[in-house]
């Protein structure tokens, strides 16, 4: 394209302006989960002014971090058009391993943390291998492995208990550079996502979710990419489980189950389609904290605990309507059928 002459410059500028303005709805769509998060935080702070302190924010982050991890991994799997129910079993297994295997030394804690995350990645990769080789539905495969890893967790530790070394609990409660450790973990995690967001791997994952046949015919190694996606999900769930163990100071063989559908809900609030093809880990993490804060807000608004489920459901419904309204506007603008 040649340089615009001075006479056509205003027109060119007009066209550019229109294309910039045209992107606002899709930008707004991307921002919806974050705006929801800010809105909930504002409501929360208006009722509990002391909630906007570094300490309180640290608590909030700690309360939602395990879900954020699970939602991050779930996002990757959902981008392929799949779903990972086994995160429930993997989270439980991770808490149980942490509560029974850690010794009170830095070396032991570090080595076992790495090992647990690798076990999670292996469990995830197993999902991928099973669904690729046996050509099964992700729902069924991960339902089975969820049960399997829950069983393993029960076998290791039949009741909630075990012990998390004091050294680890102390470290989690420190405030390096003035911010609580959970906040640092969150920041590092999000930075990591910024790095991999533009990776060829994520591109392949989205391509598979968008049109698997086309991705295959374009030379994408579909089996390997799927196995990698599920391995990432498993690793994230295991990391979340380790952190969860430090919050409850013990291991529990069924604590992970609550996180399965919550993680999927967080991904939906983050704007990803359950049919695959798109998704953002950062937005899903925001979705996870929307769900976490919703609980706190119900409490802060003074509703009785019996009503908590109903109010949380209403907040969830409002969040999903806000996200899907944005999607609808975008589809209309693109002139797609229905």
């Amino acid at each position, binding site marked *: 394209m040649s340089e615009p002459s001075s006479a056509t410059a205003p027109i060119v500028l007009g*066209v550019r302006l*229109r*294309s910039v303005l*045209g992107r606002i709805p899709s930008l707004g769509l991307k921002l919806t989960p974050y705006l929801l998060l800010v809105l909930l935080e504002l409501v929360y702070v208006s009722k509990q002014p002391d909630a906007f302190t570094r300490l309180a924010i640290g608590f909030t982050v700690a309360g939602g971090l395990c879900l954020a991890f699970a939602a991050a991994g779930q996002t990757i799997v959902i981008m392929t058009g799949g779903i990972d129910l086994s995160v429930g079993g993997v989270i439980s297994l991770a808490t149980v391993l942490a509560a029974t295997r850690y010794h009170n030394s830095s070396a032991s804690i570090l080595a076992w943390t790495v090992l647990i995350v690798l076990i999670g990645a292996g469990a995830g990769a197993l999902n991928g291998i099973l669904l690729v080789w046996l050509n099964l539905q992700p729902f069924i495969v991960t339902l089975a492995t969820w049960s399997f890893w829950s069983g393993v967790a029960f076998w290791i530790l039949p009741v909630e208990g075990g012990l998390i070394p004091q050294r680890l609990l102390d470290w989690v409660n420190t405030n390096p550079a003035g911010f609580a450790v959970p906040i640092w973990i969150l920041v590092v995690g999000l930075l990591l996502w910024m*790095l991999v967001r*533009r*990776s*060829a*791997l994520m*591109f*392949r994952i*989205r*391509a598979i979710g*968008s*049109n698997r*046949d*086309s*991705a*295959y*015919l*374009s*030379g*994408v*190694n579909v089996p390997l990419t799927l196995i990698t996606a599920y391995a990432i999900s498993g690793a994230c769930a295991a990391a979340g489980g380790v952190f969860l163990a430090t919050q409850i100071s013990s291991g529990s063989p069924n604590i992970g189950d609550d996180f399965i559908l919550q993680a999927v809900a967080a991904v939906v609030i983050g704007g990803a389609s359950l049919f695959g*093809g798109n998704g953002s880990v950062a937005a899903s993490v925001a979705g996870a904290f929307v769900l976490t804060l919703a609980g706190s807000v119900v409490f802060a608004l003074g509703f009785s605990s019996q009503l908590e489920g109903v109010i949380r459901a209403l907040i969830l419904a409002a969040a999903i309507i806000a996200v899907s309204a944005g999607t609808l506007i975008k589809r209309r*603008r*693109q*002139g*797609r*059928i229905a």
Partner: protein
Amino acid sequence: MHVENPTAQQLAVGDFASRTLEGQRSDLVVEAAVKRYGATVALDGADFRATSGEVHGLLGENGAGKSTLIKILSGAVSPDSGRIELFGREVRFRRPIDAQRAGVRTVFQELSLVPDLTVAENLVFSGTDASTGLLRRPRRLRRHAVKVLDSLGVEGIDPDALAGDLSLQQRQRLEIAKAVTAEPRVLILDEATSALAATEVAWLTQLARDVAAQGAVVLFISHRLPEVRAACTCATILRNGSAVGTYDLGGIGDDLIIQQMLGRKMERLFPDRESQARERVVLETRGFGPVSTSGGADLVLHEGEILGIGGLQGQGQAGLLLALYGAVRAKGDIEVEGRPGRLHSPAQALAAGVALVPEDRGTQGLLLNKSLKENIALGILQQVSRYGVMRRDAEADVARRAIASLQIRASSPRQLAGQLSGGNQQKVLLAKMMATEARVLLLHDPTRGVDIGTKAEIFQTMDELSKRGISIVFFSSDAEELIHVCDRVAVMSHGSVVETLETAGLTEERLLRAAVRGEGK
């Protein structure tokens, strides 16, 4: 396609039998229809009138606004402004069901059957018919389907088969049957012939006339002028989102129609082909094909050669291309660049320099909900990423070069592939595979549903590629294309190559004879 027509060339532009609108009864009227998608204007105040009782052609290049006009008439999209009148009454379609209730049935280019329902179920599956709602009695349903298919002359389709298991041609015929059996007042056939064999096109032509004779408005959209001439009495030509005019087809020659469609004179459809084939063999097969089929093809492809794949429909051509690309399990021997050994996946094929432009651009070729840029990048992730991280600049560069070199009509590299017109989607697909820098290009009917201007551009591109030493295997269902574009044509029957013909001096008749003779063996 006969672009040269001496009688038509003698006509001056002012001489055409353009229809005057006064005094003409119009049962379908579209006035000043406007539709914008963001910055793209798809329809720019189009006026259009059609009369019941005749089959009315709709002509135009890809992107001229035909698809948008049809979508508006079918209620799939709402116009930004303008009005529609149907049999004297103004109508406003907000959803497809509104149009269906008003009696408009459309056979879309993208087939809309439900793949997991049977043929019989698909025939009655409709939003407007409440009586089929709750209990579907399989036996009655089957009887109904047999009756419908018989009465419309649809042969060779099992009512109990799943729609998803049918071939493209069968699905297309079923789709047509489904639309016609609803007894529409307006029947729209959007590129309904592009997937059909010659005999089936004749069937559709007769069917369209019958439906019109029963008092319906029939709109017939095709890129193949001979088909339009056979089916229609008159045609409206669209260009750049508005109607150029409506003409009685008896009084206008092909050259002038094409000139009106393009807004300029077209040089020619086929390039002046001089064989670029060199001595060196880049691809050789013996008894090669998918494991699941009979026969096996013996092929020799030289450097810079365009090798046509011909034969009757469904003689294993599609499977052969997929097998060459490593996308299905293959049997037989194959050597690529002198190296024996089969390709086990498209990834391996691409690494070996073999690329495929697949049959169905929507379900196999493109990611319709991703941008043009992303679609092109998908085939060349190694090139546009460094240390596993995508390089935006490289990605955008490749896309911009593709848009420029193939003259893809898109508002920006960020435009979604699904928003482009069919011909432009095909160009994106070709660009994507050219970007892989493959030495062997396998093309599966790349001109299916593509307008004449784009066809000429695709043939031109193929010619240029072969001059650069790239070898092309070109499967086409159009004998004329094979003769004019290829250096040699391999005629297939039952999965085997029965004869390989030089195209110099080859006639369509000779090609057909080879195909039919192979059939007899």
